[in-house]
C-alpha cells in the first residue's frame, strides 16, 4: 500500500464519485423504468425534478475527472521516484498487473461521460426530450464502467510495493520485452504510417463530402491508430531517441508539457468526430473535429521534419 498525500486525494475523490454516482445510478434506474413524458402524475413531476439531480451529478463527476486524470498521471510520475527502477509513470503503471487496463479504462470512461453529456444536451434542447429514457439507461451501464475504474484504482494503489523492482519505461515499450504491449512492436513502421496518414486523409475527404457515419467511424479508428503510432514512431522523435517509446515522459516539464497538448487535441478531434457519426442531430462539429485532428497530425509531423532538418537522417 502506498499512501502518499496525492494517492489519498485521488482515493477520497473516488469515494465521492462512488457515492454520488450511486445516487445518480438509482435515480437513473427509476427514471429509466418509470419515465412517461405524457403523464401528468405527481410521479412524473418528481422524476422530472430528479433527472436534474442525476444530470448534475454526472456533470460534476465528469468535470472533476478531466483535470483529475492529468493529476493521476502526474502522481504516477511522482511515485516513480519512490519505486525502485521506475523512472516515469509508465514504470508505475507496469508495477501493477492492472495498470495498463486501468489507464485505458480511464480514457474510455472520459469518452463515455463526455458523450453522455453531449446526448444530454441534445435531449434537453428538444421540446419532447426524446432521449431521456435512453440516456439514463446508458448511464446505468456507464456507471458500472466507472465503478470498475474505481475498484481498479484502489487495487492499483493498494498493490504497489515500494521495494519491488519494476521496469523502467525503456524496457516496457520495446520489442524485446514480454509485456502486453510488445506484440505491437512487430508492426512495420511503413505500414503503420500509411494507415495513420491514410486514415487522416480519409477524414479530410469525408469532411468535404459530409458523410457523417463514415466520418464518425474514421474518427473512432483514428484514436487507436494515433496512439499506437505515437508510441511506436512519433514518440521517438519527440525524445530524439530511437529506443524511447514512452507515452508518458513527454508530459513532463523536460518536453515543455507538450504531451498535454498532444492528448488534448487528439481527444477533442476524435470526440467531436465520433459525436457527428453516432449522436442524433449533431450537424456542426465537423470543423472542430478536423481542426484538432489536423493540429495533432501537423504537430507530430513537424517533430519528424525538424529532426530530419537538424540531423539530416531519420531515426
Amino acid at each position, binding site marked *: 500500500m502506498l*499512501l*502518499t*498525500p*496525492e494517492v*489519498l*486525494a*485521488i482515493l*477520497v*475523490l473516488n469515494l*465521492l464519485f462512488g457515492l*454520488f454516482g450511486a445516487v445518480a445510478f438509482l435515480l437513473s434506474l427509476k427514471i429509466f423504468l418509470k419515465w412517461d413524458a405524457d403523464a401528468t402524475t405527481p410521479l412524473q413531476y418528481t422524476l422530472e*425534478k430528479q433527472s*436534474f*439531480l442525476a444530470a*448534475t*451529478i454526472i456533470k*460534476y463527476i465528469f468535470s*472533476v475527472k478531466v*483535470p*483529475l486524470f492529468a*493529476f493521476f498521471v*502526474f502522481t504516477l510520475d*511522482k511515485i516513480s*521516484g*519512490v519505486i*525502485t527502477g521506475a523512472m516515469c509513470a509508465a514504470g508505475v503503471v507496469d508495477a501493477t498487473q492492472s495498470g495498463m487496463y486501468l489507464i485505458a479504462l480511464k480514457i474510455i470512461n472520459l469518452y463515455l461521460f463526455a458523450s453522455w453529456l453531449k446526448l444530454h444536451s441534445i435531449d434537453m434542447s428538444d421540446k419532447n426530450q426524446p432521449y431521456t429514457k435512453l440516456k439514463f439507461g446508458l448511464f446505468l451501464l456507464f456507471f458500472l464502467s466507472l465503478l470498475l475504474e474505481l475498484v481498479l484504482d484502489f487495487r492499483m494503489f493498494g498493490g504497489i510495493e*515500494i521495494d519491488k523492482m519494476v521496469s523502467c519505461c525503456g524496457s516496457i515499450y520495446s520489442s524485446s520485452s514480454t509485456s502486453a504491449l510488445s506484440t505491437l512492436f512487430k508492426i512495420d513502421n511503413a505500414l503503420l504510417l500509411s494507415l495513420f496518414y491514410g486514415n487522416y486523409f480519409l477524414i479530410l475527404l469525408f469532411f468535404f463530402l459530409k458523410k457523417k457515419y463514415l466520418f464518425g467511424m474514421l474518427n473512432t479508428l483514428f484514436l487507436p491508430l494515433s496512439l499506437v503510432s505515437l508510441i511506436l514512431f512519433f514518440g521517438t522523435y519527440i525524445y530524439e531517441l530511437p529506443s524511447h517509446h514512452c507515452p508518458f515522459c513527454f508530459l513532463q516539464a523536460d518536453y515543455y508539457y507538450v504531451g498535454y497538448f498532444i492528448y488534448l487535441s487528439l481527444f477533442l478531434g476524435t470526440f467531436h468526430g465520433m459525436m457527428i457519426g453516432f449522436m442524433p442531430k449533431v450537424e456542426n462539429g465537423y470543423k472542430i473535429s478536423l481542426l484538432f485532428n489536423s493540429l495533432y497530425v501537423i504537430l507530430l509531423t513537424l517533430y519528424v521534419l525538424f529532426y530530419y532538418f537538424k540531423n539530416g537522417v531519420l531515426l
Partner: protein
Amino acid sequence: MRSRINLYIVEYAINSLLRQKYKTLFIGLVLTLLIFLLSSVFFITNSMKHELQATVDALPEITVQKIKAGRHDEIDVDVIDAILELNGVESAVARVWGYYYFQNAGVNFTLVGIDEYEEQYKKSFVAAASKLDFTKPSMLVGEGVKRVMDANYYKEYFNFIKPDGSLKRVDIGGVFKAETELESNDIILMSKESVREIFDMKENKATDIVVRVANFNEVATIASKIKLLYPDTRVITKDDLKISYQNIFDYKSGIFLALFTTALFAFFIIIYDRASGLSSEQKREIGILKAIGWRVDDVLREKFYEGFVVSLLAYVVGITLALAFVYIFHAPFLREIFSGYSQLKTSFALPFVLDMQTLALLFFLTVPLYIAAIIIPSWRSATLEADEVIR
C-alpha cells in the same frame, strides 16, 4: 450562447453571497481554516523534504557499514584499501561519528570526527577543517548545539562523559555552519582522535566508510562488488537513502492526511447542513427567479458560481495565510510534529519551496469536495415549486 460563462449570473451570485453575510462568512472561515491547515502541513513537509534531499545530495554515492549480529558495528579501516583497488572508485574515507546524549538538556548531539590532512567528504567540512585547532582538544559546534550549551553555562568548553565514566574536556573553538541549517544544527565537529576517545573506539576502527564514484552509472555495479568482497557489510547507495527519506515523509503526511480525511468528512457534513438550511426569504427569492424565467439550470448554475467564488477565495486566502505562517513566522507548533529533530529544541528556517503539484493537490482535496457537498442542497432549492410564490 448559454454554455458560456455568464458574468451576470456570477455578479448575481457574488451579490447573493454578500446579502447573506453571516452564512457566507461562516462557511468561508471554516473552509479557509481547513485549507490553511492542510497547506501548512504540505509546505512544511515539502520544505523539510527539500532540505533533507539537499543533505542527501551532498552525501557520497556509497556508504559501507559493517553488520554484526544484525546490527551496525565498527568497521576495520583497512577495508578502505581494498575498496580503493576497485575500478571506478575515486576516493574512500573512513568516517568516525556517533550520537552523544546530553542528559542535562535531554538532547542528542551528533559528534563528527574530521582529519586535518584528509579529503573531506562534505564540502562544508573543508572550511571547518582549516578553522579547527587540531593541536589540542577543540571543537566547532552547530548553532543549535551552541544554544543548548550556552543555556547550560558551557561557554568556553564542554565536558563529555566517556563510557568508563571519566570526563573529557573539549574547548569550544567556534560555530559550524553548513549550507542548510538542518544539516549543521545539531552537529559537533572535532578531530577523529577526540571522537574516538569519547566513544572509546580503537585506532583502526571507524563508524563507516564512504565511497565516491567517478561515474554515476557505475554506482550500482561498484556497490555490488563491495558487497561481494565483504559479505558482512551493508552497502547503501545514495538512491536508497533518497527513497527512504521520501517514504518517511510521505508516510508521515499520509498518516496526518488519514486523520485529516475524518475532518474533511466532518467539513462535508457542515457544508451540506449549512447549504440545506434555506430561510423562507431565500426560498421566496428562488421562487421569484423561476417565476420570471430562470431555468432550473440557471438557478443551479448560480448556486455553483456561489460555491466556486467561496471556495476559490478560501483557497487563495488559506494558501496565502499558510505561506506567511510557514515561511515568515516559521510555523510555530505545527513544525514540531514533523521535525524529527524536535528533541533538540532549536529552530531552523525552512527553505521556500512551492510547486504546481502541491497547489494542485490542495485544490483537489478541497474545492471538489466543497462543490460535492452543495450539489444536493442546490438541486433541492433549484427545483422548489415556483408557483408557491404567487399565493
